[in-house]
């Protein structure tokens, strides 16, 4: 109505209209988030009332049918896989972004960039499938059973590599061109430019890329489920099978009842807490701009 005869309306009416719409949409978005959180807490509460929080970390094992609810193995599994994947993907992603932006000839850079973008678009089940038929047999030859922490780390590293690489590349792209001119004017070598100027100036952007990738890693389910073996134990080596918090939910949701079902929601809640922590870290990292 208002838009159809916009020319007779004062701009301030437009403004109020737009503000109203924006308010509605952002309220809706936060309402959805709130609902999910509420749903998680609401469904976790029964078991939390019943046995308390400490049992989830102190019980002898995860055997929900026998009322043993230790989530520590899954928590450790999730964190180990995430850390391993980050350790692999962060340097690789950052180096590939550096290569793309500062070393590669333009044709190769464009090709490589679209390759990375493609990598980010591959469905996680395909990664899992590849891991299962290619990677797991390879690891099995070295040290059985093959489905392991290591397999999870490698596949997850591949999956989060594009996140690191693309955000790192965007960070480099946003650096003021004055730095490059200045460095060229002083005929600094590319190596000096990179290590002394570009990397320090990009610190916060690179940190953000790694943290966001970590968020993606901790939430990954399908691929991990297919290649990690899913045994609820704290792994004693890279070759041991592990179960993650996400896999734990996906595996048991179908048949869980009562406290067991509720305990799975606690897994979900735990994931949310980790994600919140990562996001607020990313927020903080992002604040330190290159001009700080």
């Amino acid at each position: 109505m208002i838009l159809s005869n916009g020319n007779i309306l004062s701009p301030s009416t437009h403004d109020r209209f737009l503000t109203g719409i924006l308010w509605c949409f952002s309220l809706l978005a936060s309402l959805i988030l709130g609902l999910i959180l509420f749903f998680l807490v609401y469904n976790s509460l029964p078991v939390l009332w019943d046995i308390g929080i400490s049992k989830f970390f102190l019980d002898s094992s995860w055997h929900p049918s026998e009322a043993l609810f230790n989530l520590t193995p899954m928590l450790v599994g999730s964190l180990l896989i995430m850390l391993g994947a980050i350790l692999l993907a962060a340097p690789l992603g950052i180096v590939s972004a550096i290569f793309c932006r500062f070393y590669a000839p333009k044709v190769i850079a464009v090709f490589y960039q679209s390759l990375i973008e493609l990598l980010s678009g591959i469905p996680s089940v395909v990664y899992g499938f590849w891991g299962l038929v290619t990677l797991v047999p390879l690891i099995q030859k070295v040290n059985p059973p093959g489905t392991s922490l290591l397999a999870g780390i490698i596949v997850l590293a591949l999956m989060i590599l594009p996140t690191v690489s693309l955000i790192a590349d965007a960070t480099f792209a946003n650096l003021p061109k004055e730095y490059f001119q200045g460095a060229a004017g002083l005929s600094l070598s590319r190596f000096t430019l990179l290590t002394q100027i570009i990397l320090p100036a990009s610190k916060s952007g690179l940190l953000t890329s790694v943290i966001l990738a970590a968020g993606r890693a901790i939430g990954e389910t399908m691929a991990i489920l297919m290649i990690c073996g899913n045994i609820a134990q704290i792994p004693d080596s890279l070759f041991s099978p592990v179960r993650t918090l996400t896999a734990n939910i996906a595996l048991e949701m179908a048949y869980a009842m009562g406290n067991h079902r509720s305990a799975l929601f606690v897994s979900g809640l735990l994931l949310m807490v980790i994600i919140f922590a990562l996001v607020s870290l990313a927020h903080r990292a992002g604040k330190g701009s290159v001009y700080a």
Partner: protein
Amino acid sequence: MNIPTTIEALDLSSTIIQVENLSLHYNRKPAFAEVSLPIYRDQITSLIGPSGCGKTSFLMCLNRLVDLVPLAKMSGQIRFNAEDIAQKKVNVVALRRKIGMIFQRPNPFPLSIKKNLELPLKEHRTKNKAEIEEIIQTTLEAVGLWKEVKDRLRHSALLLSGGQQQRLCIARALVLEPELLLMDEPCSALDPLSSATVEELIQQLKEKCSLLIVTHNLAQARRIADYTALFWFAEQTGKLIEYGPSAEIFNQPKNQITEAYIRGERG
């Protein structure tokens, strides 16, 4: 040195750079064409003229920074120390050490004041710590920054004021002891007071090296430049239309356009 009244009367050995028929195209679009001029040793030469007539492009040819611009094509000769530096095979790293550049907007690196000066020093001159300290102090004194920053050398250079940043950039270029310093409107992004300080500094720099400075500020050119060149946009490209001692350019210009431009009637 006496300032000769006409270009013809000049001794060639007093020139640091001799530009012959230099032209530059960006993707076939001409930036400036057939510029020939000598730049005199230990003098301040200013390039004036309206925007878009190739002054900055001309500057960037002299230290080959123009190489960084995709599709830029340069032709002609630039003789510097008996070498034609317009040739492709020239060692641009060595060249840019000898011909420094100051940009319109101060561009200190996002590092500490000290680190800004250390980087070029370590790369090209010395890694000896004591020597570095000494050069940093003398250079900062030379640009009049030492007293202002000596207690905060480890603070970010980005916390300095615009004028201080520009003087730091000048110091950063000076630590390499350039023979020629190119300046692209070094004062235009500064407030009047900082601008005056930097201008004063530029006049003192004459004792250390030759200077070629692009400016839009005619009064500034008149105040500080020994020689002045007027670029103009003509025949679809930038052209050098008059060049000579500043006194002559500003008081008895030969070209009508120059006369109109310096009187503020054109441009």
